[in-house]
Each structure stands twice: as C-alpha cells, then as structure tokens.
C-alpha cells in the first residue's frame, strides 16, 4: 500500500513539474515571440512591464482573467464554453507521454522520467491532436458568427488534411524504432538521432506540425486579414486565453515531438536530459517564430495542394524507401 501511495506522490510530483514547466514556458514563449518578432522587425518589443518586459506574461494573464467573459446571445452556450477547454487540455495532455530524461533509480526502484509510458504513446499523441480539432471546429460553430464559422471550418479541414501527412511521415520512425512507445523511440536513437537517417520524414513532419499548430504560414483558421480572428473571434477574457494558451502549449508539444522523433528526445552530451529536451523545444519554438517573422500566409488552395499533393505522396514514398532499406539491411 505504501508503495502505491509513494508511486502516486511521485506521479503527482512529475505531473506538477511538467505542468509548471509547460505553463511557464507557454507564458514566456509569448514574451519571447513578441520580443523576437520585434527584433526581427527592428523594433524593441514589449518592454514596459518590468525590465525587458519580463512581467508582460503576468500582466497579460491578469488582463485576460479580469476581462468580462462574453457569451453571445445567439451562441450555443455549452459548446461555446467547452471549446477552449478542449483545445487547451488536449495540448496539455500530450505531455503525459513525453519522456524528459533518463530513468532515475532510487532505492532500487526505477522511476521513469515520463508521466506515463504508454506502449501506444504515438497513437495517443495523434488521438489528442485529432481531438483538438473539435475545439476549433466547435468553437467556431458555437460562436454563431460567420467569421468564426469560416475559421472553424478552415481549421477542421486543414488539421484533418495535415494529420495524414503527420501520421505517415512518422511511420518510418516507428519502423526503425520498432515501437509506438515514445520512450522506446527515444531509446532507439541512442546512437544517432533519426534526423540523420530520415531527413525527408523530418521535413514533412515539421511542415505538417506547423500546419497542425495553425501558425503562420498556416494560420488560415485565424487569418486576421480576412476573418478578424477566425474561430475565436467571439471569445473574450480567459476563454480566449485558453485558446491562446493552447496554441503556445501546442508549439511546445510539437517541439517536444520533433525532439522525441528525430532529435533523440532528452538525449545529448554533457547536460542532463530535461535540459536538453527544453533546449530542443525552445529551439524549435524560436525557429517557428523566425518562420512567422519571414513567411506570408498560404492561400487556401496552396495549403491543400501542399498537404495532399506533395506531403502525403512524399511521406508514402519515404515509407516505401525506408521499408526497402530495412528489409535490405
């Protein structure tokens, strides 16, 4: 019994640790993004709240929390209120399967540095990303606003399309690791990260991941220029904040998944595992910011062409090639 209790506390500690890091990182990613975007555009970026704007995320958080929570007259109340929760929670839940370090051994017991090592972890991750489509689509529909509805529909179409490429691009990785478990995949990269052997899969996964996160250049569902703010146009206060949070957690999720699948997860020389994972996540987030600062938005037909006509065939070809190589060697 005490063992179970201890295990429970260890699990709670891990969850708390991961949540704290992820949420803090999400908050500061916003600041980092704004600061970096400013620099990319030869501006300063936020610098009024605290030194270098260090308190900006807190100010933003307070602002979002105290703002009025508006539910429109014509909105589908329940669904409207549920949608941001879906988006945020789905993004957060993905972190349950991300291994963030070498297992520690205390008193002969091995404590895995992952909240939950599921043997079908990969499927779990994809299931969650798929579910977050509901948040976007339902939020857009329940707002009873044409802009939000258009944004929601675009979001659903885009995310479903790129999910295919995302999933197919990772098949070679699974083939090489021989497991769906993220822990096993990381372990399989002990010698070299998969990016070296699977550069094409990496590129497809990265592009699809960007599209999944609905960030520039794939921000069709939000598309300020045409739709105002897309699916979350009618949201205010902390409900909008949840969508916002979801987006930045999603950034980290994708950074973490890329690290796990292609960069050897927490593995790296000199520094401890969690630090390496963090460095990789933040590195990818910064690259996303850089992309945002550089590229314009795709047109809708270009978006679909890229997904269906280029990425999916390329991923399929990659699977075949990888299969041939595995059989051959």
């Amino acid at each position, binding site marked *: 019994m005490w063992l179970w209790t201890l295990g429970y506390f260890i699990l709670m500690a891990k969850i708390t640790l991961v949540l704290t890091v992820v949420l803090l990182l999400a908050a500061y990613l916003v600041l980092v993004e704004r600061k*970096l975007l*400013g*620099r*990319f*555009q*030869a*501006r*300063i970026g936020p*610098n009024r709240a605290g030194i270098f704007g260090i308190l900006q995320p807190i100010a933003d958080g307070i602002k979002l929390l105290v703002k009025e929570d508006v539910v429109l007259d014509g909105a589908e109340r329940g669904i409207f209120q549920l949608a941001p929760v879906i988006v945020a929670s789905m993004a957060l839940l993905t972190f349950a399967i991300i291994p963030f370090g070498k297992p520690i051994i205390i008193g002969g017991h091995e404590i895995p540095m992952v909240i939950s090592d599921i043997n079908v972890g990969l499927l779990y991750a994809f299931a969650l990303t798929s579910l977050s489509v509901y948040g976007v689509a339902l939020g857009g529909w329940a707002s009873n606003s044409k802009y939000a509805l258009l944004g929601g529909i675009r979001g659903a179409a885009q995310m479903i399309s790129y999910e295919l490429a995302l999933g197919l691009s990772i098949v070679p990785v699974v083939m090489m690791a021989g497991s769906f478990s993220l822990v096993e995949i990381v372990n399989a990269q002990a010698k070299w990260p998969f990016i070296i052997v699977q550069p094409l899969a990496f590129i497809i996964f990265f592009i699809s991941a960007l599209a999944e996160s609905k960030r520039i250049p794939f921000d069709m569902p939000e598309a300020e220029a045409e739709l105002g703010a897309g699916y979350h146009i009618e949201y205010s206060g902390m409900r909008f904040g949840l969508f916002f949070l979801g987006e930045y957690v999603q950034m980290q999720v994708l950074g973490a998944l890329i690290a796990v699948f292609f960069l050897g997860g927490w593995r790296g020389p000199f520094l401890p595992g969690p630090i390496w994972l963090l460095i990789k996540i933040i590195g990818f987030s910064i690259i996303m910011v*850089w992309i945002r*600062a*550089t*590229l314009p938005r795709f047109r809708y037909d270009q978006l679909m062409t890229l997904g269906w006509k280029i990425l999916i065939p390329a991923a399929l070809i990659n699977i075949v090639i990888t299969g041939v190589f595995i059989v051959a060697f």
Partner: protein
Amino acid sequence: MQPIIVIGFLNNMKVLIEIAYALYMGFYTTLKNLFRGPFTEEYPEYKRPLPARSRAQIILTSDPDGQERCVACYLCSAVCPVDCISMQAAEADSGRRYAKWFRINFGRCIFCGLCEEACPTSAIQLTPFFENSKRDILKMVYEKADLQVDHCGKDKNYNFYAYAGIVTKSAGKGEHVKEEKPVDVRTNMP
C-alpha cells in the same frame, strides 16, 4: 523525347533552386534584422521635435494686429468629417463677425487638418502638440477660451479684414486694400 524530359527536369530544378534561394533570402533578411538592433524611439523618455506643420491640437489664432481671426464662417464645421466643431457667429460692436461661441470636441477630432485647409482667414490651425488626452471626456471638449491664442500661428501676415471690404471699426468703405473711394451715385460726372 529524351531532350524534352531533360529540359523539363532542368526547368523543374531551376524552379526548385529559385524557391530555395527565395526562402534563403527571406530567412536571411529577417535574421539579419535580428542583429541590427531596434530603431524604436521610446516615446515618453525621448520626444522627437515635430515639424511645425504636424497635425495635432487645434488653436484659434489672432490677426497681426491682435484681434481674433475667426469670423465664424462655419466652413471648418462644414468640412469636418467627424462633426467635432460647432460654433455660433455673431456681430461685434466693431462690425466684425466673430464666433460667439466656438467648441471643438477633441474626443471626436481625428486631426485630419481639413478645418485648417478650409479656413479662409488662417484662424484655425493645427499645432504639433499632441499630448492632450484626458481622463474625463468632458475635459476633451474645448471652448473658445481654451482654443484662442494671441499669436498668428503659422501664418504671420494675413489679416482678413484688411481685404474683406466690409465696414468695421478699423476700415470703412473704400479704405481697404485695393479699394476705390465709394461711388457717388448722385453725380453724373464721368
């Protein structure tokens, strides 16, 4: 058959290279900016001296001889796209037409400068002073006393009543710039 394929392949390669180059240039440009440092002038710490013709706070100027320039002709209020100017004209004892009251609602003003352009007497002028926000909306409503200044503003010379030809205390009929003496209707002399 074969040359066509080769040319097609080369063409495709060319396109791919172009794409790659374009991406490279784009990312290079943004990256370059990252290290160039910001150009921002931080406002409350540094206040850039604005040109005399920049458009902010509105004033009502005076003639070179010190009298109110505004004749309350209603042109500024007519041209104002946000209807923030209102006034009432009246006749002063001196014979001059003037604004009995003149009100600008700066809560509405968009500082477009059309009033200044419409003003036939150079009375209404925009100044570079823009730090005029208030916490009370009623304080944004400026009355004539708040607007009237005792200098000429940007136009140092113009004096409408020297040309207008109407009788005021300062000039009677035929005493304005380029005016003949009043006609004597009762003479038949040429």
